[in-house]
């Protein structure tokens, strides 16, 4: 347990300059606003008192360094400012809407992995075959489809033409009663409450947006899996295992596959950033009440504290996930563990 803790501390220390950079950029974005930032943060129809209050709160009359320090202090207190639309602290709004986004992003990451890992492995095993070419073409096409367009296509086919999917209007049926909130994830809350109608309803609403989202991650994941599998299959230890007449399935699925999963793990982190980006437009298409549509509503209303709060917290979440993946990598890969 002790070496694990040390490696976690080490990864976090590595991430400090990046986190500092992220906070610096986010600070710059709140001060870059054309004209007077205080006017912008006060919203569409500000009163002079509101502007004066905000100027004081943002320390706009003080030197830049002092403004930055107070910005960091506020961040450490979890203060991202107040949203104009909801009148609530931005952090509270984001936390309230986070489960919807996590539910969607998590399921789509799962779909992306379940589709692209077999595709990549088959592509590598039958390199140059028809299946390989088809898989490559599919993954390039998936990479070339904007998720807002895939989402609309899915809605047209499965809602309008076939009538299989519910209307793209949120997480549950507007007439249905959501299960009591425990985890915030409707499907899990439904199970906890024994309310299976909510479970199926929640799943039905989840399917289309998560497929639309997953498609944007399939391209890179399939490629990396295929490449990693090819590299591992041509390496010395596989050749040695082959010469010992090890059964083919064992060679491929136990030895080669396990080693090929390491680069895939790293890419999964990168794909998460893809998904969070695509999430914003997919949430718009499906009226999904997550943090992406929150940011868009804020954008329309010129609610800058909410927009920049969203940008910063999503970036911090992504940094955190990368740290987590690095730590996982250290646990999975014996070589990394021994090197430390």
């Amino acid at each position, binding site marked *: 347990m002790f070496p694990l803790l040390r490696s976690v501390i080490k990864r976090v220390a590595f991430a400090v*300059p*990046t*986190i500092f*950079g*992220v906070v*610096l*950029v*986010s600070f*710059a*974005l*709140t001060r*870059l*606003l*054309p004209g007077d930032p205080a006017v912008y943060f006060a919203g569409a129809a500000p009163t002079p008192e509101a502007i004066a209050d905000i100027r004081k709160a943002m320390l706009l009359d003080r030197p830049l360094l002092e403004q930055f320090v107070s910005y960091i202090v506020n961040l450490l207190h979890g203060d991202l400012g107040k949203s104009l639309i909801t009148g609530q602290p931005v952090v509270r709004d984001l936390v309230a809407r986070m489960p919807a986004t996590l539910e969607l992003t998590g399921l789509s990451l799962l779909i992306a992995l379940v589709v692209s890992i077999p595709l990549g492995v088959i592509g590598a095993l039958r390199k140059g075959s028809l299946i390989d070419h088809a898989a490559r073409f599919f993954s*390039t*096409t998936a*990479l*070339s*489809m*904007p998720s*807002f*367009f895939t989402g*609309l*296509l899915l*809605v*047209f086919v499965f*809602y*309008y033409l076939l009538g299989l999917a519910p*209307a*793209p209007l949120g997480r549950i049926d507007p007439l249905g009663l959501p299960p009591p909130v425990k985890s915030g994830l409707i499907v899990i809350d439904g199970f906890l409450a024994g309310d299976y109608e909510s479970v199926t309803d929640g799943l039905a609403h989840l399917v289309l947006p998560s497929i639309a989202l997953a498609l944007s991650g399939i391209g890179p994941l399939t490629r990396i899996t295929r490449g990693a599998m090819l590299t591992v299959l041509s390496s010395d230890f596989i050749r040695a295992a082959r010469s010992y007449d090890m059964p083919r399935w064992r060679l491929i699925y136990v030895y080669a596959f396990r080693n090929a999963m390491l680069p895939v793990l790293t890419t999964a982190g990168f794909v998460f*950033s*893809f998904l*969070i*980006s*695509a999430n*914003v*437009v997919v949430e*718009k*298409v499906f009226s999904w009440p997550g943090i992406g549509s929150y*940011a*868009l509503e804020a*954008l*329309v209303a010129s609610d*800058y504290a909410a*927009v*920049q709060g*969203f*940008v910063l917290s*999503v*970036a911090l979440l*992504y*940094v955190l996930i*990368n740290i987590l993946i690095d730590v996982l990598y250290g646990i999975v890969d014996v070589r990394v563990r021994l090197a430390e």
Partner: protein
Amino acid sequence: MEFVATLQDGLRRDPLTATTMAIIVIICLVAIFGPFVASHDPLATNPSMALKPPTWEHPCGTDQVGRDICTRIVYATRLDLFIALSAVGLGLIVGGLIGSLAGFFGGIVDRLAMWIVDTIMAFPLFVLAMGIVAALGNSLENIIYATAIVNVPFYARTMRAEMKQRREMGFVEAARVSGNGPFRILAVHLVPTALPQLMVQATLTMGWAMLNAAALSFIGLGIRPPTPEWGIMVAEGASFIITGEWWVALFPGITLVLVVLSLNLVGDGLRDVLDARERR
């Protein structure tokens, strides 16, 4: 010249890349000459013709105010291509500069450059672009700047790797002992050798830049209606999808996908050609 010969050879063996290159040439021609041959006015509304499905007169149908969608797609090609080209061009200059300085000089310059690159990469890139446009203001130039900024890391990393690999080579040493200063070596002897790699990277990111810019206008940033632009046109058609008027969103969306797919396939093809040359 040797590169051009390799390219010709590679294309002959790879008909898919050749086809997609042809599509890109056609798209460029449409962007340049399309508006001169388009049959309708992209902004002329005609309420009596609103939301009509495709006919011979309107091959892609009409939108909610009776504008000809086909004409609007043609006009939008120029704008979308312009945004992607200028964003990638700008990103190439800045990213190439950062990357070559970092790779050639190393040390503190390298560390500073990589800190900048890592910081940009720490953001989900579309979200960063969104934040930049929100902060700088809602305009066409700012869409271009934002898209350029989120592309910088890719070019900077490519250029840095190329420079690092080459800076100890014989021809650099030769240039140095014959009295060339570091900046002259970099500009005259080193950077040109890395241009093919940079061009492949540019093609590969061009499609992505296009998707990024279209997504920004889809969520209502940058270009404003009634200007024809693919992202906006899909956004306008979005509300008609659930009532069955599919053509409003479908045709501009398909055009965008086709162009981006072509760019990606060409980028892949060019990379394969280049890799094959390096292996030889």
